[in-house]
Structure formats: C-alpha cells, structure tokens
C-alpha cells in the first residue's frame, strides 16, 4: 500500500486481477521481512560456504589448554571454545554447511518424491489416487520422529556396507550423513504430495488442460509442459518451508545422540552439546548461544522467505 508508484502506472493490476505470472517478484521485494531475510540468509550462507576451506581443517582441532575459554579475539575465537578446546567459531561455520546441506537435501528429496507422487495420484485419479493417498494417510499416522529414528537405525549399516563395496572401506561418515538426508527427506514429502495432488486436481479441471487433451497431446507432454510450470509455485514454497523443518529435525536427533557422528558438527549438535555442558555453577553460555542464534536466525529467515514466496505465487492470499 505504501509504494503507490506501481499502482499508478499499471492501474489495472490490482491484487484481485493480478495473475500469477505478472510481475510476481515485485510482490516479493515489497515484502520487507522477506527481503531482509533473503539478505541475512545470503550472508550466513556466504559465510559458511565461503570459509569452507579453512573451517574444514579447523573444526576438529583440539587444544585442551583452551577448553571452555570464553569468546576472545586473540587468539581468534570470537565464539569461545568447547569442552574439548575446539574453536566454536569454526565449528559453527562448518556445522552451518552440514545443517544447510541436510536441509537442502531433504527438501530436494521431498520435492522429487512428493511432486511425482502427488502429480501421478492427482492426474490418474480413481483407484490409483485412492491407494496412493491412503498410503500417505497411513504414513501421516506414523509419528514422524519415530519414523526418522527407525529409518536411520535400520538402514545405516546397510548403507555403510553398500558404500564400502562401491568406494572401498571407511565410508561410515559419508553413510551417516547420507542416511540422515534420506531419513529426513523420506518423511517430509508427505505434505508436498498432498499439496501437489490438490493442485493437480484443480488444474486438471481447467479449460487449458482440457484443450491440450482434446488436441491429443500425450499425458507425458501435458504433465511436463502444461502442469509442471503451474506447480512450480507451490513446489518452491513448500520446499523452502521443508528446509527449516529438516534442520530442526536433525537437531532433535543430535540431541538424542543419533544425529551426525561425533567430530562432524551441525548447528543442532553444537547447541545440544552446549545445552549438555550447562551446569548450575558455571554457565558456558557461548557454547549454547552462538549455534542457537545461527540456527534460529536461519530458520527465521527461511520461514519469512517461504511466506514471501507464498505471496508471490498465490496472489489470492491476503496478508
């Protein structure tokens, strides 16, 4: 409402008449919290990935003389040291890479499975739809944290064996992270499948799809050329909202001691370590606060960006 320039130049584009394709990004940039979030998140991502060369070497270096030292600039440890005398600053930066990686991988998995599942169920309808969506209902009935734990514990040894056979022995750490991707991604596609199915159902009834069918286009072409572009919006929105969920779920696993394996940090495992180091006599606040702030800030930004994107792609929602 405050920026009236756009409305005076294009008076016909009110909220009600604006279609999904016309200047959607203007709506995003006008959303101040989403824009700020994007910048903050950009800085965090840049800091984490930009320093990867250094942090990958430094994150597990122990200096037992420095254990539990508070934040200091000389030697360079602005976030202090943990119980084993490791520099929390580098651990946070490296942990950010792992956390964001888990979030992105889970989102990617949920996009692939969820979109395919929902699109196929919605497109074919009838009995196929019924069976596929009942399965989603059943999986919804399973408590997802339990499902993640079960998936991880059950398939981790198998994956280690598989990776050992392909890449040679010593693949525990890779297998550990990959199984986390898979387990968290494997439970987060359910919402995506439901949303996409609903979207496909409503699109299917629209004239342009009917026209494409009447022209005799094969189903594959209709799905790829006509349905998929219209699904991009919800896919992006829910993928953005899956990332923080996945990061949060990893932190719960870390807290329970079944997350990423020991020397490799994530923001969640760092915060969990910090929480466990707290006692009533001395609080080593820096062990909790820095990873928690990074984790919370990132999740906050992702949620804001997701909301902003929803406004972009779904012009009907009023704020």
């Amino acid at each position: 409402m405050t920026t009236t320039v756009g409305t005076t130049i294009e008076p016909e584009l009110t909220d009600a008449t604006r279609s999904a394709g016309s200047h959607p990004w203007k709506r995003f940039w006008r959303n101040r919290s989403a824009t700020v979030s994007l910048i903050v998140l950009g800085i965090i991502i840049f800091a984490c990935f930009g320093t990867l060369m250094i942090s990958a070497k430094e994150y597990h270096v122990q200096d037992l003389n420095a254990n539990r030292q508070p934040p200091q600039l000389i030697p360079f440890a602005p976030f202090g040291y943990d119980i084993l005398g490791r520099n929390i600053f580098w651990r946070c930066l490296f942990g950010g890479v792992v956390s964001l990686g888990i979030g992105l991988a889970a989102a990617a998995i949920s996009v692939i499975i969820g979109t395919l599942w929902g699109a196929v169920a919605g497109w074919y309808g009838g009995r196929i739809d019924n069976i596929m969506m009942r399965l989603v209902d059943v999986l919804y009935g399973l408590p997802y944290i339990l499902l993640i734990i079960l998936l991880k514990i059950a398939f981790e040894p198998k994956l280690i064996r598989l990776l050992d056979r392909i890449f040679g022995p010593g693949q525990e750490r890779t297998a550990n992270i990959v199984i986390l991707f898979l387990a968290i991604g494997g439970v987060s596609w359910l919402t995506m499948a439901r949303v996409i199915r609903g979207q496909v159902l409503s699109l299917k009834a629209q004239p342009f799809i009917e026209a494409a069918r009447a022209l005799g286009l094969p189903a594959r072409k209709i799905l790829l050329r006509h349905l998929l572009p219209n699904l991009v919006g919800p896919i992006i929105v829910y993928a953005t909202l899956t990332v923080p969920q996945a990061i949060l779920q990893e932190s719960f696993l870390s807290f329970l001691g079944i997350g990423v394996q020991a020397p490799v940090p994530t923001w969640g495992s760092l915060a969990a370590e910090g929480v466990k180091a707290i006692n009533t006599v001395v609080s080593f606040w820096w062990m909790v606060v820095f990873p928690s702030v990074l984790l919370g800030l990132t999740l906050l930004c992702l949620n804001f960006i997701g909301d902003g994107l929803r406004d972009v792609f779904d012009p009907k929602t009023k704020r």
Partner: protein
Amino acid sequence: MWRHIIIRLALCPVILWAIYTITFLMAVTIPGNPFKMSDRNLSPDVERAVMAIYKADDNWAFYWQYLDHLFQPVKALRGEGPLIDLGPSWQYRDWTCNQIVAAALPVSVGLGMTAMFLAVVLGVPIGVISAVKRNSWFDYTSLGLALIGISLPTFVTGTALLILFAVKLAWLPVGGWGGISQLWLPAVTLSLPFMAYIARLTRLGMLDVMASDYIRTAQAKGLPPRTVIWKHALKNAFLPVLSYLGPASAAALTGSFIIESIFNIPGLGQHFVAGVLNRDRAMILGTVLVYSAVIVVFNLLVDLTYTVVDPRIDLEES
C-alpha cells in the same frame, strides 16, 4: 453422517495394521537383538531356546503371533487377560510392554494435552488481538515471540526457561514428575511452537473473516465489537486452527520425548528411543502402535468436530 463415522471407525484397524506392518518391516531390518547383545555369555543352546520363546528366531512367526495376540476381546471378556496385549519386552525380561506403556502413557498424554490446552487458550486470543490491532506493537511483539517459538529447537528454549525460572528465580522445580508445579515448565516449553503456529493461523483467519460481508452486517446492526469479534468472526476463523489441532496434538504427544529428557519426565518417548537402541522389537512395535492409535483417533475426532462447528461441510462428499 453416521455412515461416515462407521466407515471411518472400521478403517482405523486397517490403518493400524498397515502401520504395524511398515514398522515391523523396518524393525526387522535393524541388525542384532538383545538376546545376542547380552553380556551374560549364554551357551548357544540356551540362547537359541530363549530366542525361540520370544519368537526372535523366526520373523514371520513373530509377526503373526504378535498380531494374533494384539487384540483379544474374547479373552478379555472371560477375564483371562488384557484386551490389548503388546507382548513381553525383549530387553526388560520381567516386564510386559503393557506394564511399561501403562506406566508411561498417562505421563506423556498428560503433558501433551496440557501443552495443547495452553497452546489453544493462549494462542487463539493472541492471534485474535493481533488481527484486530493489526500492525500495532502487540502484533509485532507477538509475531516476534511466535517466530522465536517456531525457530528454536525445544531443547534450547526448554533449557533457557529452566535456567531462568528454576535456577535463577527458583520459582519452579528443575524437573521430575508428580506435582502441578513440575508440569508448568515442560508444558509451556512443549506448547511454544504450537502456540506460535496457532496464533499465526488465527491471525490470518481473522484478517480474512473480518473483511467479509456478514461481519459488516453484524457491525452495521450495532452489535458491540466484542460480540462481533469473539462470537461471529472467531467461529469461522477457528476452522483452520481446528484442522491443525489433529496433527498438532499428535506432534505434541510424540515430540514430547525431547522435553521428557530435559526435565527428567518418565514418559513414553524414552521407551521408544531405548527400544530402538536396544533392538527391543516388541517395545518398538508397542510404542509405535500406541502413538499411532492416538494419532488416528485424534484425526478422526477433529474431522468429526469439523461437521459440528461448520454444518456446511459434508464429509460424505469429500
């Protein structure tokens, strides 16, 4: 309506059976079992005999026997055993899963329900006031707090509350279970993310509803604003919250084991985690089935309440 309820009720056992099978298939994949991990160094013959008693040597025999023993209305009527039998625990040989669940489930349910109650009782009014006083300091403050509630893991918020209220101020006990005073901190911690989400849902719903014609009519005919907002508008704005309550209650119940671990509460969550880590198949199946049963029933209840709150919704069609 009644036909729908009956169909839904009849589907519940089918859903639970599917969940049982999925969980079983995953539990079988976990390598090792507590009989082999025993530090008592049993002779192979004894080990084999013990495993045979628990049907740990034959996966499918276990599958069918567990399913067969699970629900026994006839036995229960004759007073020969429990209605639902979750079998003996593989790890704690002197206990049945029924005994373990019976001790732990009320704790988890009590904690989860208190948290959901707090989330609704505080979240809905916060959302309504935020919507009515849109863009005020209250709106921004509550939005900020809500986002903190969503964005931080509960073990961080829980520890922060613990340090503030139990250690520094010493108003409440640090942990444990039994009294009302011990319930406050864990319940509030658990409710925070749900409260935040409910407040935001209510706010969005209210903003939508307040712009509609029937609200303008209500205002035009001179009803006091309080009646319009809390009676007319909230009734419709509450619908999205209602549909969120099903999954949320389930999540509150199952997500509580982080909280249980922080505050030393003897709930069901620890038994599931311990069950997985101990490869205690009976315990895994038992806890998952109990959790799932609660979730399935909750989803059903929410669907049914929907028709009561909004008679226009016809479950038969959807």
